[in-house]
């Protein structure tokens, strides 16, 4: 089963798709990373192709590293958080299924963001609703796919689904908080030793 076929399946029959991926050896790790890479390329493409009057940032304000981080880190943290939260509350999903499945949720974005962005080259700011509406639609689609993914993979009912999603968002927040905290402490720690080294070098 090719990745193109799977992308078509996730768009047209998302429920079936998320049932299918639970079959053993159906998914490959590489597919997840490939899709994230595609999402990143779509993001860069949309930044590049947007009409001048729709630009919100100057070219020098855009860094492709940051753009990648802003797709990659939320994806990874979401998967880790979702897996941790759902595993302790009787979710059935495996980490591989969650990781690759979430990447497949980005399919609408990968496929449609560039055509939508191209539209900004032929519409004026007074018709910006077309653009904003279609981008919101794409994001809503992605959001819905993520919800379906959580529901089907872990076999939750609606009440538990909302609870798990809420807990996952909370967990993502905690992971980021701890990450930033660790970064701050670590850099202080390192700079402390660096200062000691400098001090010693001055004295000796």
């Amino acid at each position, binding site marked *: 089963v090719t990745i193109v076929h799977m992308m078509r399946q996730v768009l047209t029959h998302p429920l079936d798709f998320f049932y299918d991926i639970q079959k053993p050896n159906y998914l490959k790790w590489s597919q997840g990373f490939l899709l994230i890479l595609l999402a990143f390329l779509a993001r860069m493409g949309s930044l590049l192709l947007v009409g001048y009057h729709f630009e919100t940032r100057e070219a020098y304000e855009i860094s492709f590293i940051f753009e990648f981080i802003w797709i990659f880190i939320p994806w990874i943290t979401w998967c880790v958080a979702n897996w941790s939260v759902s595993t302790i509350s009787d979710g059935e999903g495996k980490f591989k299924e969650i990781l690759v499945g979430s990447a497949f949720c980005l399919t609408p974005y990968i496929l449609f963001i560039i055509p939508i962005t191209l539209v900004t080259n032929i519409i*004026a700011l*007074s018709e910006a609703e077309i653009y904003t509406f279609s981008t919101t639609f794409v994001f809503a689609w992605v959001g819905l796919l993520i919800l379906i993914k959580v529901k089907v993979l872990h076999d939750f009912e609606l009440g538990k689904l909302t609870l798990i999603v809420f807990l996952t968002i909370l967990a993502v927040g905690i992971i980021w908080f701890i990450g930033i905290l660790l970064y701050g402490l670590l850099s202080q720690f390192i700079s402390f030793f660096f200062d000691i080294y400098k001090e010693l070098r001055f004295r000796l």
Partner: protein
Amino acid sequence: VEILKKLLPKWICTLLTLLLVFMLPMETMATSPNQGYIWDKNGRDVHSINGYVYETSIDGAYLTTGPFSSPEDIFIASDDSIYVVDTGNNRVVHLNTDLEVVKVIGDKEGPGVLNGPKGVYVKDDGTVYVADTKNQRIAIYDNTGKFSKELLAPDSPLLGSNFTYSPSKIVVDKRNYLYVVSEGNIKGLMQIDSKGDFKGFFGSNDVEFSLKRFLTRLIATEEQKAKLESVVPLAFSNLTLDKDGFIYTTTLGTDVNQLKRLSPVGVDTLNQGEKKYGDLIDYSETFQTSSFIDITVSEDGLITALDLTNSRIYQYDKLGNLLFVFGGNGDQNGVFLTPSSVDQNSEGIMFVVDKGRNRVDLFRTTPFADLVHEASTLYVEGRYEEAKKIWEEIINLNANFDIAYHAIGKALYKSEKYSEAMEYFKLANSKGDYSDAFRQYRIEYVRENFIWFFSGTILLFFLIRFGIPALIKQITRKRKKNKQEMVANREEEVS
């Protein structure tokens, strides 16, 4: 080594002669101590050509009246004569256009004697209104300088019980209504009629609702509330009146909308939303913010305001676009110790009172500024076509002048050259105008290539009407065929 020893004295000699040459007094040119700059579309301060250069000074020591003492205000009357409020000497000195003393007001014994005056306004007929700050009154003199009457502190329940009257700046409108800035008064400009009755506050700076403040108040205990900074409206620091009866004000203690143009009903017509005046750098809270203390408006609506924080003078066009910055802190000519007031005469010469040095500095416009002023006046009046040529010249002289690109774009838009207008709006980083030009360009483009669009649409229609159904039919037929084959295969296998 010996050669070096021989050469060394020679080197020293040449160095010494060079030094001497540079130490000789050279002929001075009309250079400004500061390089001109302007804030560009990306919020960076970029080089620009100076708009004003130092010309000369009025130093009281060379006048028959003797040196000034911390002058606080200057007023150029409609006949271009100059009134300097010599606060430390408790008088107002009236000079003519040749910078000679005409008369001195308020120094004679009697009811007209001034005490620490801080502001003056002169009507077209020569009547002089002085804000006699320490006497807490407005003193009025006729055109010969004779004291005619005084307006004492107004009495009104609107003023509140702990109101202290400390008039510092005034203007008088056509109805003979006085608009008074009373120091420390946060309720707005005081409107006083010609009889001295209080008529109400005008154009107050309202405190806007802030969610953060609201939440803090909600949570804080009584003790904490007492410690919180009390939020009060901001006080006006100065005002001026233009020929159309609009009052321009300066406000202290804020980063945005420090300058305002109040319509006769007291509504700010200069700023839509929040606009920053002065230098745009975001200082952290411990740093100083700009503090505009005086403002003057030309016949054509150019706004010039004085910022005490960095002693610089900023000039804006009628729409609030920055044109020039000049002045600064220092001891040279062209910069100030402590500037206190600014005004201009009908020829566009800028008079800046330097309280710290007890003199008035005169600045004249550069040819570049003359061009910009002319273009800006035409532009504001909507005569884009005439302005366009001048703006193009301005860009040739100074490519950093972003408003020129915008103005040329407007002119091109008016003359229906939309694709060129788009280019210029792009250079001016004006996305809204770019979008408008683009919209027009799109209409034009479709109209010009109508045949292609028309035939394309027809083609598309036929494609959708007949092509796609045919395609679908073909695919379904193929699938059926495949299925039949598969079924046949299976049957074979089974059998």
